[in-house]
């Protein structure tokens, strides 16, 4: 199982390293979205709940791009058929895809979060706030990656693939947005950062757990033929 996951994940990352497609697009998109926010909100700096909203809308919409491309190469080039021929558990594909999407999201956030801090964020975050932000990002990314993989696998076999992914994923990700936005708001507060509200971290963790189990139970049915 772990060897299969390792091989699949290596394949995903190698593909992206050799012909970068998803990550650059997501990174560019997120920076453009920040610029759009600057003009649409008509302000040079944001703080507090507005800052949290801008950050999460940007990251979520960038994640939609990655999600809709996640299974496309496998579907078009016959990777899924080859995987089904291999005598390994299908859960390996789920784990590898979730890990790959997580890695893409992390890479994008390495660009998008500094860009957000430079371009739009009013109060400069301290090291402690940064650590807490990273913790919330990690929890939210896990949820986005799991739900994104499930939705990507659902949508890749349909004719309206790229249309369906955001339609399916955005309502499913609303609890993540609620938790992540509420948890990051005090970190961006004008008057010094508040503490990390544990209730929202718990909501994010609960979401990750529930959708992790759901994806584990249902993914096999999506890669049958």
């Amino acid at each position, binding site marked *: 199982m772990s060897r299969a996951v390792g091989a699949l994940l290596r394949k995903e990352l190698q593909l992206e390293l050799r012909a970068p497609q998803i990550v650059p697009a997501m990174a560019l998109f997120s920076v453009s979205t920040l610029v759009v926010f600057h003009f649409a909100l008509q302000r040079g700096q944001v703080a507090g709940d507005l800052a949290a909203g801008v950050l999460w809308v940007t990251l979520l919409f960038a994640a939609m791009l990655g999600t809709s491309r996640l299974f496309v190469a496998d579907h078009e080039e016959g990777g899924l058929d080859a995987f089904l021929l291999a005598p390994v558990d299908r859960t390996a594909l789920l784990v590898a895809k979730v890990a790959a999407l997580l890695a893409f999201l992390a890479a994008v956030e390495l660009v998008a979060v500094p860009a957000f801090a430079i371009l739009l964020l009013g109060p400069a975050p301290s090291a402690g706030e940064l650590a807490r932000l990273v913790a919330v990002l990690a929890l939210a990314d896990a949820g986005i990656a799991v739900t994104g993989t*499930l939705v990507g696998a*659902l*949508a890749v*076999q*349909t*004719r*309206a693939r790229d*249309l*369906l992914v955001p*339609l*399916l994923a*955005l*309502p*499913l990700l*609303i*609890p993540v947005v*609620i*938790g992540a936005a*509420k948890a990051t708001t005090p970190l961006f507060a004008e008057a010094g950062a508040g503490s990390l509200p544990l*209730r929202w971290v718990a*909501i994010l963790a*609960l*979401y990750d757990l*529930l959708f992790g189990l*759901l994806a584990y*139970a*249902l993914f096999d*049915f*999506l890669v*049958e*033929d």
Partner: protein
Amino acid sequence: MRYGTRLTTLSLLTAATMTAALALAFFYAPMDADQGFMQKIFYVHVPLAIVALCGFVFGGVMAIQHLRTRDPRYDLRSYVAIHLSLVLGAGVLVTGAIWAKASWGHWWVWDEPTLVSFLIIFLLYATYQPLRFSIEDPERQARYASVFAITAGAFVPLNFVAVRLAQSYTHPRVFATADGGLPPRMQVAFLVSLAAFALLFVTLWRYEMTSKHASAQLRSLRRKLTADGDRGLPARGRSAAPSLPSP
């Protein structure tokens, strides 16, 4: 299972209960001291919402059965339940908006968690049919729709928890306590309306299932008549909605 049996009795029972529910709501239940006549929409809005949510969850349960047994009948049951719940869900949003306008002065209020949760769930289920109908292979369509129905069914309670927590709710809950904040006569009227809308859902569900079964049987009879297969017949799958394979 034969869906057509005793459908007339069921329809009559539904009509009678619905009439009784409306009569009770208008003439038996006391007028709300605060909201007056407008509060009567409560007897439509809340049962409709409860029945729609139960329909979504029932669709999820049927989808689990479908994935376990691979029997297309379960998929059809799941489809019809979700389809009907979506129609009822549109009714919930409209009645909810009317009620909100009448009692709070706005068509939409974001600090009413139940309303917001319902909107999110409605938006999610609104993609059920686009997802279904853009998959051509009927077997795969059924399988993917079931996966969606289970995911969305499990999402319903989680979403309610998250949205409820996100709002500092300013409006008191009607059923805040176990025995309800409702006076007994309102409670009677409410329970009868709930029964009426549940019966309405069951009746409509049975009607649609009967129709699907009848057209499957018709198709197989036609196929027997034209001995050489489907030639000269309207192509199967012209409608994107799922149907049973001919017996």
